[in-house]
């Protein structure tokens, strides 16, 4: 591999990567699509915040309150510039991607006027969505008597766009799709779908949970109306997610949760609401987590998103290639590292994914087994579950080798092939 990243230096930033597991096996962490590990730089910022600056935000005049508020709002600036948001006010902090997607689907259910979704209207998703980008739209369409439709998948695990013009039509109010699939690894042609959706006046929601961690992102260039992602998959803390939305859209949507900080004024009969972003941030926000996310973004930027994307591509290509040696492996999703992210789900003939991951774990290799919150995509490929290895900026070729050795051992253990 010709690598743009100094992975050995990067690994030193992640304390957990030196962990030894049972029987003194070194940790081989191949589950970053599930959640990423955190660098010392992020841990330090969290620690410093709680030790020196902790206070609630936006409601204290004292010095700590001012420091905490400044750090929290600075994190918003950092995230906004990282994703190319035209305005910092368009960055809403949520607790994760799921909450961001539910925020959009719920406020659309409550919206009146041109955004309202009702009987006869359609919402379009895809068969490769994470459950977090399926269920909120099922709830919306069920509640409003609208129809949920979806793009199917090709055998290679790409979106089948042949019927895009009939699927996305003048009845379509929302198109919501994943940018990079957490199961198949597919990178979807978001721009093509945005073009068609905007032709018919639909809004486009992009689940960028796996994209923002591994690709350079410019939401303005992407052209979508809403983009959701989650801090814990991009070397940030858990408990913090981001909803970016175009200002005009966010301003038209009604509030989501009611409470402190989201108001302009409250009287017993009725209230008026704060401007965005605060309109959508009721109650004490995840302050330390937002500040930690800001630190995570600083970290990723110091490494460089182009370099991270290139590394992800190389390590994925290497793993896809080595997996073919094992025998009995069927990769679900593109088998070449073209328009493909760093998550590889596969079947091993004759051994259930649970058993594969259990045996790999006994050797320190951490992968995910199950449906990866993408049951419909598994059903599409006629399987109930799969084993998934996923990579990030700290993943090395020897770790992929450990996976391959582990898979040979699994076959031996279960006497297959």
């Amino acid at each position, binding site marked *: 591999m010709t690598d743009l990243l100094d992975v050995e230096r990067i690994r030193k930033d992640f304390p957990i990567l030196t962990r030894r597991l049972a029987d003194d096996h070194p940790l081989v962490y191949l589950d970053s699509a599930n959640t990423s590990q955190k660098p010392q730089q992020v841990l330090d910022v969290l620690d410093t915040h709680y030790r020196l600056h902790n206070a609630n935000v936006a409601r204290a005049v004292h010095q700590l309150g001012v420091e905490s508020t400044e750090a929290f709002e600075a994190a918003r600036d950092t995230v906004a510039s990282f994703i190319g948001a035209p305005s910092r006010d368009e960055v809403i902090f949520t607790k994760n991607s799921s909450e961001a997607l539910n925020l959009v689907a719920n406020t659309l259910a409550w919206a009146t006027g041109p955004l309202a979704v009702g009987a006869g209207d359609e919402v379009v998703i895809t068969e490769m969505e994470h459950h977090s980008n399926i269920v909120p739209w099922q709830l919306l369409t069920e509640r409003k008597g609208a129809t949920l439709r979806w793009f199917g998948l090709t055998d290679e695990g790409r979106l089948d766009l042949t019927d895009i013009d009939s699927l996305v039509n003048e009845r379509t109010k929302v198109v919501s799709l994943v940018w990079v699939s957490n199961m198949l690894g597919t990178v979807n042609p978001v721009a093509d779908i945005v073009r068609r959706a905007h032709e018919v006046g639909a809004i486009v929601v992009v689940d960028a949970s796996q994209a923002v961690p591994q690709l350079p992102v410019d939401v303005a260039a992407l052209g979508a109306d809403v983009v959701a992602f989650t801090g814990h998959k991009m070397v940030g803390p858990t408990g913090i997610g981001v909803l970016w939305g175009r200002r005009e859209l966010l301003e038209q949507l009604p509030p989501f949760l009611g409470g402190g900080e989201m108001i302009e004024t409250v009287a017993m009969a009725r209230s008026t609401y704060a401007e965005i972003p605060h309109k959508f941030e009721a109650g004490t926000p995840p302050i330390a987590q937002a500040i930690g996310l800001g630190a995570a973004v600083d970290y990723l930027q110091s490494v460089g998103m182009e370099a991270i994307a290139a590394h992800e591509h190389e390590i994925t290509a290497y793993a896809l290639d080595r997996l073919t040696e094992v025998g009995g492996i069927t990769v679900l999703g593109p088998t070449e590292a073209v328009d493909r992210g760093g998550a590889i789900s596969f079947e091993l003939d004759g051994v*259930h*994914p*649970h*058993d594969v991951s259990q045996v790999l*774990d006994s050797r320190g290799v951490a992968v995910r*087994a199950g449906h990866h919150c993408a049951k419909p995509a598994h059903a599409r490929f006629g399987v109930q579950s799969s084993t998934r290895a996923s990579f990030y900026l700290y993943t090395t070729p020897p770790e992929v080798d450990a996976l391959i050795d582990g898979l040979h051992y699994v076959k031996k253990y*279960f006497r297959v092939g």
Partner: protein
Amino acid sequence: MDLNALYQEIILDHYKNPLHAGLREPYGAEVRHVNPTCGDEVTLRVQLAESADGPVVHDVSYDAVGCSISQASASVMADLLIGKPVAEAMSVHEDFLALMQGKGQVVPDEERLEDGVAFAGVAKFPARVKCALLAWMAWKDATAQVTTPLTEEEVR
């Protein structure tokens, strides 16, 4: 980590050659249980028969998709419970549940659990206990449905 404690030979045998597999007629109740975390599924049918000493488990048939532990557990359970009076089967069920929830501290009674003792090691792998219990919970549910008289609403 002792993998062999988890994957006993008996478990692997039942996994490769499951007993009483497949769905059969007649049956008194059919249930479908899933493990939402991993998606393992079992559809299970129970047929009871009357005897002088009360109801007996006449047949347990099932269709299961899942890992070696959940598949083997369905096979062992069906073999163990078929032919037993329901009351005794319920008490074997309780023993197996106690074994699985015992965090590796419970010593199983081989007389009662037979091949089921092979699952003792599973109790030390908390993530796999649900796999071992999937079919057992389905059986209990199905049996309760057969033995509990229908409510008035259900009759209607």
